[in-house]
């Protein structure tokens, strides 16, 4: 059982929805971003998605692209990202951390070496955007064997025929991408998303978390209400981009988390 499984069991027992927040590691620098990450659990975040910066984030909108560029301009690396996780784990052994990013930095490190480093640092799961089920042998299967969850994206283009393939090697939770498009683009509508979540839940017992296009506490509440929880990324990252103090950003995160927890 990973920290992710334990977290969902606890939330279920409390009758609560999960609030997941995405932040980019090293944006705008390591100390600031570590302060932010350390403050997330107290702001109500149940699961942290930690972005691993990449030069070519083809599934992300401008907000997250630019955050990655700021991090890389500050010489952020995979090693420093792993170190951030270790520093977080020094005070918090409960909140799950999911690393989210693209395959090349991991492939470049070497899959086996990466997995043992990630596990040792305290990472619980991976969301790797450019690894569909067709490429499961690359990282998904080795990650599961190493005891990490591999969380898959399901999308509006994933039809019923394809869904079982997407769910097959998924663990931890299913991340439903609410829109066709990139992160931070169109706004997700609960009435469009609800039947899709139901469709996925009819084929899996895993929690279904909805992300992409959720920007406000109200949206957080309405989307979490029709799923097992929701993810907010770009809206938080853009607060950081405005140069706001970490405490102010955490206040905003708390309003989003409260929204999801009201659901």
């Amino acid at each position, binding site marked *: 059982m990973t920290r992710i499984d334990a977290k969902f069991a606890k939330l279920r027992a409390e009758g609560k929805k999960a609030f997941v927040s995405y932040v980019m590691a090293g944006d705008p620098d390591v100390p600031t971003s570590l302060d932010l990450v350390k403050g997330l659990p107290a702001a109500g975040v149940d699961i942290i998605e930690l972005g691993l*910066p*990449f*030069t*070519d*984030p*083809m*599934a992300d*909108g*401008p907000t997250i*692209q630019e955050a990655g*560029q700021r991090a*890389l301009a500050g010489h952020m*690396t*995979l090693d420093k990202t792993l170190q951030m996780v270790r520093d977080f784990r020094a005070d918090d052994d409960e909140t799950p951390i999911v690393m989210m990013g*693209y*395959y*090349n*930095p*991991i*492939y*470049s*490190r070497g899959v086996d070496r990466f997995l043992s480093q990630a596990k040792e640092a305290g990472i619980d799961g991976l969301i790797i*955007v*450019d*690894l*569909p*089920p*067709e*490429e499961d042998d690359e990282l998904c299967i080795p990650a599961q064997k190493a005891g990490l969850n591999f969380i*898959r*994206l*399901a*999308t*509006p*283009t*994933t*039809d019923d025929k*394809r869904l079982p393939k*997407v769910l097959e090697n998924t663990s931890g939770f299913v991340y439903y*991408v609410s829109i*066709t*498009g*990139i992160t931070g*683009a169109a706004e997700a509508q609960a009435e469009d998303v609800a039947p899709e979540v139901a469709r996925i839940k009819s084929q899996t017992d895993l929690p279904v978390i909805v992300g992409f296009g959720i920007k406000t506490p109200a949206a957080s509440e309405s989307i979490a209400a029709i799923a097992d929880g929701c993810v907010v990324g770009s809206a938080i990252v853009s607060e950081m981009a405005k140069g706001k103090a970490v405490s102010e950003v955490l206040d905003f995160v708390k309003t989003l988390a409260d929204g999801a927890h009201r659901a």
Partner: protein
Amino acid sequence: MNELVNSFMTGPDEKGRFGDFGGRFVSETLMPLILELEAQYEHAKTDQSFWDEMHFLWKHYVGRPSPLYFAERLTERLGGAKVYMKRDELNHTGAHKINNVLGQIILARRMGKTRIIAETGAGQHGVATATVCAKFGLKCVVYMGAHDVERQQPNVFRMKLLGAEVVPVTSGRGTLKDAMNDALRDWVTNVRDTFYCIGTVAGPHPYPAMVRDFQSIIGKETREQMHEAEGRLPDTIIAAIGGGSNAMGLFYPFLDDPSVNIIGVEAGGKGVNEKMEHCASLTGGRPGVLHGNRTYLLQDEDGQILEGFSISAGLDYPGIGPEHSWLHDIGRAKYVSITDVEALEAFQLCCESEGIIPALEPSHALAHVMKIAPDLPADHIICMNMCGRGDKDIFTVAKALGRDIA
């Protein structure tokens, strides 16, 4: 024993791999689209009416077959091997790019897609796509790095004349790879009506194989024309490589002819060194995953993608088609690099000795011909692919030669 086992022409496998290279490294949103594209392409490939339409348009719209030309004065000047040029620069729109665009647009029409998107570097693929879209009355959106928009104004204007919308890409560093990222972002957003027309033998499966198949008309014609001219196969074939589509098109029909030496020429920029001021993915890069496929890439030690550098905007890409990576690793083709300075010399020699103004891309291939031809015997036949004409490059060349023509 099945002869095909020993063939170099059977790839890719069902996972879209050439050896360890290629594959389908895309987000889930795109996955159903590329599976659909693969199914439609596999169907079209065996449909005679698809190829009939292609051949009709190749002949009457593009002007194929392009000539195979014996470069007599160049051969004399080099004093060794006989040099032939495959004249794909004579195609409509001035480069090999349209061979592939026609195939993809005909496929898009069969799939009922009404909106075509493309990425472009120097603008040749963008112009070819805008051209064919105009011919068929399709909406066309071309993503082009903001930096390339600046340095390739004539092609930007051409695309606009042809009715295309040109979107300057400012994300990342505003170059070809960023244009490809933005085209992929567009596709992920507009999945229902949009067809992504990729300009080179890269991207997720089936693009590398499909674009190669469409460009293979170059090599097929070369085989026939060489038989007519010399009664035999060439000894060496040479082509320039950015993503590698003109090269793959020339090489593919010769892969199973062991007597034919195959040489790909990468852009060496200011020289292949640790400063990475070049675009030689095979000579100076290592395997990685970008834009849907595993291939050799210019990257730093942390797996972050680096920008290439070349005088030629058409070679300015940090990756290379996966089939080239495979041919490189198994040793069937040899890959070398040529610097900006060497390419400029070849450019001038070609103008003066043959009355052909070559694009900077094939000038790289020609520069390698100049290197090896003098040491080869007179009965050695070299064929290089003159894949584009140089009209688009005269401002760049003038600047490099320190002349003011503005």
